[in-house]
């Protein structure tokens, strides 16, 4: 029966022309397809910057990192003197790799973040390393990671109380995380270590899915940057029990830090602008200076603020120091959890 049907199918296949019919037309179609893949790109050198600068963001349009890339380009291009064009090349690893592999002539720069440092240890096949593959130009912003709960929910209690509850019944409190081994997941890992607790870790692809689950009571606590919770906090939908900065955020003076509550958790999600390794000093300093001017405008600070972060320019040297600090933290977690590139 089956045999018969297969034979029938094959017969239909042949009768309707199979593959052999009109090979020349198929060839035309293929040629059009191939032709489009081979568009040449020309470039010449002149006084820097002679043309627009490409700004690679390894994230989808509208994502937090993309918003900062666009913000930086908007305020930077005025002082650079040429347009800075944001080019989205998701996923992150592809964007980071594209930046690392770009020509170091100052016409390709990009946004890098905690993930750039972390993926080196976590993602199989990754060759980019924050020190070897890039030259950092400047920091754009940093943002604290907060631990937040549903307002009025069973876990809307002081942090110490939450930790006590977690210790009393280990492995019962559900924590929602917007992405495996992102800055917020690292914060969670460090917090669990410092507080001596263990949560049930539920991973969501992003905050957009994690937050409704917190509000709906499907998970109990969540870690995430201020960009995710700031508006909900102001509207009284969530309560933030602690943040991972060293000092309290002046925008949220009532939110205590983890450190002042006795948990030594200091971690920030940071965005930097970087160029491929080998980009000349003069270009790095020219761009760093241009962005410094742009980022000191009030408009930049306000916009960064509404994106939930603190706009804070830092020059190449300080930025590199900040990366080193993060690298150390990340390596600590990687070692503790025996994480391997996957």
């Amino acid at each position, binding site marked *: 029966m089956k045999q018969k049907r297969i034979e029938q199918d094959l017969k239909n296949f042949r009768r309707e022309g199979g593959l052999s019919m009109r090979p020349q037309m198929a060839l035309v179609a293929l040629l059009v397809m191939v032709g489009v893949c081979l568009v040449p790109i020309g470039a010449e050198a002149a006084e820097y910057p002679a043309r627009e600068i490409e700004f690679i963001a390894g994230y989808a*349009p509208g994502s937090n990192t993309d918003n900062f890339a666009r913000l930086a380009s908007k305020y930077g291009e005025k002082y650079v003197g040429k347009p800075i064009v944001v080019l989205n090349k998701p996923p992150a690893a592809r964007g980071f790799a594209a930046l690392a592999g770009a020509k170091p002539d100052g016409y390709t720069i990009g946004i890098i973040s905690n993930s750039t440092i972390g993926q080196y240890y976590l993602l199989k096949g990754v060759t980019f390393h924050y020190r070897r593959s890039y030259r950092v130009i400047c920091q754009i912003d940093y943002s604290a990671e907060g631990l937040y709960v549903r307002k009025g929910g069973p876990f809307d209690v002081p942090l110490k109380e939450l930790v006590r509850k977690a210790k009393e019944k280990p492995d019962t409190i559900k924590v929602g995380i917007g992405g495996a081994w992102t800055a917020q997941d690292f914060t969670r890992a460090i917090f669990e270590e410092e507080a001596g607790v263990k949560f049930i870790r539920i991973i969501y692809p992003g905050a957009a899915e994690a937050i409704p689950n917190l509000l709906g009571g499907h998970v109990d606590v969540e870690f995430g940057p201020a960009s995710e919770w700031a508006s909900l906090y102001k509207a009284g939908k969530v309560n933030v029990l602690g943040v991972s900065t060293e000092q309290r955020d002046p925008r949220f003076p009532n939110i205590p830090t983890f450190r002042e509550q006795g948990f030594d958790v200091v971690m920030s999600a940071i965005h930097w602008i970087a160029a491929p390794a080998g980009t000349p000093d003069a270009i790095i300093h020219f761009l760093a200076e241009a962005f410094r001017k742009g980022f000191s405008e009030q408009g930049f600070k306000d916009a960064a603020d509404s994106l939930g972060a603190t706009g804070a320019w830092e020059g190449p040297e300080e930025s590199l120091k900040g990366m080193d600090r993060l690298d150390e933290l990340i390596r600590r977690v990687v070692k503790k959890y025996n994480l391997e590139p996957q």
Partner: protein
Amino acid sequence: METIQQILYGFSVALEPINLLFCFLGAVAGTLVGVLPGLGPTAAMAMLLPVTFGIPPTGALIMLAGIYYGAQYGGSTTSILVNIPGEAASVVTCLDGYQMARQGRAGPALGISAFGSFIAGTIGVLALSFVAPALVDAALSFGPPEYFALMCLGLTVLTFLAHGSMIKALMMAVLGLFFGTVGIDPITGVQRFTFGKTDLMEGIGMVQIAMGMFGIAEILSTIEQTIKISVFETKVKGLFPNLEDWKRSIGAILRGTGIGFFLGILPGGGAVISSFASYAVEKRVSKHPEKFGTGVIEGVAAPEAANNAAAQGAFIPMITLGIPSNVVMALLLGALMIHGLTPGPLLMTQHPDLFWGFITSMYIGNVMLLILNLPLIPMWVKFLKVPYPILFPFILLFCLIGVYTINNNVFDIYLMIFFGIFGYLVRKLHFEAAPLILAVVLGPMMEKALRQSLTMSKGDFSIFFVRPISVVLLGVAILLLLLPMIPRASTREKIAKLEE
């Protein structure tokens, strides 16, 4: 009463000439990117985002939103005319829309999709203005177990999509589930089937698959049939839907609107799933389900209404909670934030001009789109008279450009071509593409929800049966799978009687 006052205030903002202009520009741009295959609203909005930095936030938001819902109108055009979904939510429209075009009924198909989109869009905005806060609570009651149950229900739609062999449809679905696993596992961060290629880390995009399996495959098989027997010589019968068409479609449009609006509120691929779901519902309630797939107008009206209503529903989590339910919403939020505004629950009270101006602009935008789209129909239909040898290189070119703009990645072009050739081959063997695409959409969401649920319950499967919403959804899914057995039995009896 207060709402009505606010809406009137909103109209005063939206009717300012400059905002009308932005609304119009957005609607035109949206229609355009919707019509061009592959070039979706996301790419267009990302490209236009820097332009909006220079204009006031209200205008920016109105224009960007116009692109978004405008694309939902335009997306069906190429689905109907040349069997190429302009964007993912229009895949289902291909099934009956293209068949209608082949029968010379491209006009009514385009007409009903424009009217359906208009009706759904308008009802959607009304619902958005009046019942948004209540609906968001309903959406929040969906946790991972409820999602899993909903996806199970979604998979039963498969049984309605197939109009050939059920076994073959299921085979394609399984293959689709497999394609859905490619990429970085969202739960553990492990790479699956990526072969070390960063291009595959985010998985295989549904648009690439849909454009390949519908668009490229269609081009290849039309070429093979040569220029002689082509769609385009069939006589065009009527440009607009007639009374009979309306009678058959109006119920479909309303049901599609309801399904679309609710699924649109839930984060994830609301518009796409709702278009499939509404198609299945129509087939279920129809008196002649066997005709679906051969060019019935309900098969066009329902999914088009659903994807437009979903587009409106998706605004709810954004405006009430500041949570984007899809990429387009994330872009809108980003635009607001770069203007220094914080989206979220307080937007309504802190910036009422922006909030209500934006909402009411959508009423105006929907009217504009209808006016814009109806006169275009005769033009689109004429476009079918262009000889295929001239037409196909252009379609191909737009497909190639469109698929590239999704991620600025040449690899996506290869993917589309691969799926084009694959689609062509399986078509020869009478496999259908739609079940595969549905599975690619549902698979990853279903897997994620299942694993999240089981993490929550520490591996206990009873979590799906103790939560009321999930148990009801699972029950409906099982019921839907069992139902077809009953009519089949009765037809068998009939056949037996006839034979006697």
